[in-house]
């Protein structure tokens, strides 16, 4: 379970202060496929970067199974990182390494032995449907295939949570459907909690059982997807849904 409590993130730049997140609180339960949706610039990626410990919160806490992520150091920090797989928007694959080596990479970092590593990689590539591309290099793959490699790599260390930033925004409708299908299947077969960051309402509708709506750095509303979408309480949700009565957004 992930609890986000009063999370605030302020960036200080030459142009001045930017509050990317203001007093955001909600929790993600084990086994959820959790959607975080909002307009561009709402603070979604910042939230993901805080969850994946790439950014330190300015204030507030993120608890993973009751443990404050900010309190982790050294070995415990590395261990916590291995419990959360991250799929980045730009995939961020190692371009000089083959698909197989990319997926094996987190295992190598963790010191898993070669034979065990190879077996696990085969299993993962099978799972994401890329067994035939094991020896290809990222430059030789399509966007959807790269996305699958990134997903397989993020799953390598058997994380309990998979964080995905805009997993489908660069993909065509058919490939989007396949990737979402894969995420749903991973959730059901492995029981892994999935957090999906997106600006597309269709993605949430398709796979998320729960959703949090972020608007202008703040938590607008959240809960079960079917309930929220049936009775949107905030104007930003209505706007995202394209329902009448949504306020005009700049």
């Amino acid at each position, binding site marked *: 379970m992930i609890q986000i409590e009063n999370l605030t993130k302020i960036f200080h730049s030459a142009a001045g202060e930017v509050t990317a997140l203001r007093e955001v609180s909600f929790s993600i339960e084990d086994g959820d496929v959790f959607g975080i949706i909002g307009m561009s610039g709402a603070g979604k990626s910042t939230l993901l970067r805080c969850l994946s410990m790439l950014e330190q919160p300015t204030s507030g806490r993120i608890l993973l199974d009751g443990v404050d992520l900010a309190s982790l150091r050294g070995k415990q920090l590395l261990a916590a990182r291995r419990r959360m797989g991250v799929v980045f928007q730009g995939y961020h694959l190692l371009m000089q390494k083959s698909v197989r080596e990319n997926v094996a990479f987190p295992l190598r970092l963790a010191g898993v032995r070669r034979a065990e590593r190879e077996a696990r990689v085969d299993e993962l590539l099978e799972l994401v449907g890329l067994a035939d591309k094991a020896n290809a290099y990222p*430059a030789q793959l399509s966007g959807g295939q790269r996305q699958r490699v990134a997903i397989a790599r993020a799953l390598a260390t058997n994380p309990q949570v998979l964080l995905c930033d805009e997993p489908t925004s660069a993909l065509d409708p058919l490939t989007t459907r396949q990737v979402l299908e894969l995420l749903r299947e991973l959730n059901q077969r492995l029981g892994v909690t999935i957090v999906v960051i997106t600006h597309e309402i269709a993605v949430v509708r398709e796979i998320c059982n729960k959703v949090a709506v972020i608007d202008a750095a703040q938590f607008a509303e959240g809960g079960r997807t079917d309930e929220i979408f049936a009775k949107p309480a905030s104007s930003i949700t209505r706007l995202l849904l394209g329902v009448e009565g949504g306020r005009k957004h700049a």
Partner: protein
Amino acid sequence: MLETILSLKGVLLEGLGATLYMVAGSTIFSYLLGLPLGVLLYTTGKGGIHENLPLNRALGWIVNIGRSIPFIILIIALIPFTRLVAGKAIGPTAAIVPLVIGAAPFVARLVEQSLQEVDTGVIEAAKCMGATRLQIILQVLLGESLPSLIRGLSITAITLIGYSAMAGTVGAGGLGDIAIRYGYYRYQTEVMLFTILLLVLLVCLIQFLFGFTANRIDKRNRS
């Protein structure tokens, strides 16, 4: 012309050997110094995995000063140090000392540039996978920039051919020394031209071999 060259075969071969020895030796040692320095320049920089701006600035200064001293002056200025390290100030082995000191800062900048080409997103991804800083340096930074590092290696070796010829004129031996002794002092222009030809061939060979290797191993090429 051919007769003169043939009569000097022994001298030329020895000169070529000395040049190759100086270039290979100084390339190796300048990377032993320059590669860690270049990595440090990169990792201590803003947003780097060992961010330390005072250290970064200090290293940057050292490298810039090293790079701005003309090589011919460096050779002379380093004579006492060269004696200390190599036991003598003359000959190919002694020449390696100033060659390394001259090239290491250059190598550091080349390495830094190669590392800057690595996508920072990949470094963050490795962090999220639980990579230690050493693992990030060895497996992500150096691994991902290998083709670029090899291209830098070829630039270094070629620059060192030029430097070694310069060192040759002040007693290091090698092809530069032959060009001066025979071509300049004895007016044997054909010997001068021949040494130039040898140097050009050497440069082309290095350029070709390293360029070929770099392209060969660069997996960003689709085929």
